[in-house]
């Protein structure tokens, strides 16, 4: 099971995801509310995986993804996406994201994706 950093600008989504991941046996090592914070927390906590929201204030998820990969080219980041964000997700994948999960989150799908990404 992995050490995970959750990045989302809403406490609600972070809590929802945290509970899903926790129930799936993962450790939530940190949370961040925007891209800046995500990069700082990544360097500090060195998590196994990051779940990254796309639309966030200050710095969006794609920029944060770039920032994280600039520090750690092997960083495993999966994007949290909603319907209508396909182009952004593709951009994220091209930028180095390893996977994606779709809102509203379905626990089994989320856990499967995380298992697969951490396993690679």
């Amino acid at each position, binding site marked *: 099971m992995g050490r995970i950093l959750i990045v989302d*600008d*809403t*406490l*609600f*989504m972070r*809590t*929802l995801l945290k509970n899903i991941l926790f129930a799936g046996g993962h450790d939530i090592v940190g*949370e961040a509310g925007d*891209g*800046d*914070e995500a*990069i*700082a927390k990544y*360097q*500090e906590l060195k998590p196994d995986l990051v779940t990254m929201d796309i*639309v*966030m*204030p200050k*710095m*969006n998820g*794609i920029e944060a993804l*770039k*920032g994280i*990969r*600039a*520090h750690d*080219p092997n960083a495993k980041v999966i994007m949290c996406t*909603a*319907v*209508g*964000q*396909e*182009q*952004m*997700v*593709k*951009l994220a*994948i*091209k*930028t*180095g994201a*390893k*996977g*994606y999960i*779709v*809102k*509203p*989150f379905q626990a089994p*799908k989320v856990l*499967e*994706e995380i298992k*697969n*990404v951490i396993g*690679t």
Partner: protein
Amino acid sequence: MSDLDTYRALYVAESRENHETIVKNFLILERGLDKAAIDEIFRSAHSLKGMSASMGFSMMERVCHAMEDVFQQIRNGTLKITQALVDHLLVASDDIEQMLDDIEGGGEGTIEGVIEHVATLKGHVGGTPPDGLNEPRAEVTLSTPPREESTSNLALAGEMSGPVYTVKVRLSAACDNKNIRGMIVLQNIEEIGRIIRVIPSRETVEDDNGFEGTFEVTLASDAGEEAISGAASGTDVEEAAVSSCTVYPGAPSVQAEAAHEGRAAPDTRKERTEKTEKGREVKNIRVDITRLDQMMNLIEDLVINRGRITQIAKKYQIKELDETLSMVGRSVSDLQNLMMNIRMIPLSVIFNRFPRTVRDIALREGKEVEFNIVGGDTELDRSVMDGLNDPLLHLIRNAIDHGIERADDRERAGKPRCGNLCLSARRDRDNVIIEIADDGGGIRADRVIAKAIERGLVTPEAAASMEKEAVYDFLFQAGFSTADTITDLSGRGVGLDVVRTALQSLKGTIHVESTLGEGTRFELILPPTMAIVDVMMVRINSRRCAIPVANIVEVASLSDDRIHSVGSRETILMRDEVLLLDRLEDMFGSSVLSEILVVLQHQERKRSIAVDVIEGQQEVVIKPLGQIVGICRGISGVTIPGDGEVVPVLDVKSIVREN
């Protein structure tokens, strides 16, 4: 849903914040195009949509989705902001507010009319781009990797050689998005080998909406069959069959593939290192307000029982007990102060609702109003804050309806066309002062007097010598209005008296100042908190009562020779001042022992009362009278001191004002 009920409170709290952000930025947009405001609305609508979908509140999700679409197009520059659009957006935002109320009350956020409103919003969007293509174009362009990077990536891939394999991949039918999943699989394969060919083409796999989820990749890799199979497997991959390939595809394919390569090698990208803030931990938590109220009640009980123990300790005179009690006393005081601070919330919580109100009223009244808020960070106890919304709303409505003139009239009077309304708050020693000032026409004192004479409130003779402040005081009389016509908003004569009553129940006061032609300023003075008060315990006719220390000017002995009769009333001459003496007989019965005089003051008015004995001073918790008792003249509430007796607290304000 039941699982999600635990998230409901969090959902509502966070959604309200997002909703407030949306409304605030709508009003900014109305004044002109503002990119930051558009981005913020888009983000908030997007967050709200996501949260609502997670909670299963589909109606809310639809409204937010429509709003998000609108702002997507505004961001792209394909939709212009018009007055009609802003109006429709505000209707939608009202819907959101109502739905949140419903959800907070345990509902699903279903209210009337939403579907029509969503349809109206969608009407503005018109030719919505197909799903998936409506993401911000600017950002996509921004992130397209430069050409030379793909070349270096290709060069990197070129270094990898080895046996050639074909991988047949089949994605599951339940896959959310086959293009993206295909893209991930190709990327994973690429990390361990060099892709020589993809069938159908890579474009089809990654971008074609018609892509059905089956593709074949030819690659050269040293990693071995197992590793390739691992790389190609993953979420949504139903089958990833790897086989050795003996037929080496020709160079042109590589070239074709290379030409297609528009990908970045993420590892080689050197992004600017962002300034990072280390150690920024979550320092705030959310607490349900009812829990704070419960805690406050418990602390109040603790304060009461501390008083009780102190009294018991006095009786037994045990040194150790006294010492311990003094320690407990200190902790309780600290706890009490801390709790007071926790309960303080910034005034911006209610101030932020008003820009919208001002806009609506001004629009309806056909007036131009610039609204400013100052000092929204000033803090007040939540219990005081609760009762403040309505009085402030009344005053703001009055200012726009009666105060600020129409643009043409203002121009004629040599003023700027746009009126100014300022809502400000500041802390002044122990009080919080809120001001509502407009630069309108001011209060016509002559009309107020005329109306007062007409209603028989004052004689023309008395009116002639009245101070300005006394004249304005008529405005706070029930049913008093100088407006000639009754409008939708004000002029019905309900208003200022309601405002004053509401403020009195909050232990606050209101003053008005006005200059004809220049404007009016209402000043509200409020105690920052009202729960715990310093009182003097006295006995009148041997019954106990508490008087707030803040209202006591002085205490003196009462000898018969100091009492003078003026008409049928008893008065006292104190420091060249004649004060009415009130024995409060209607409240406590007549006492023969009254030997002490207590001078009370509220604002400028003073009055003296006679009491039997003063028992001491202490901090008490004032509990309001319950609904069963209702309003009781002269009593503002009750308190329970150490001995457990229920003691009334004098309402000095009403006693002083009585004739």
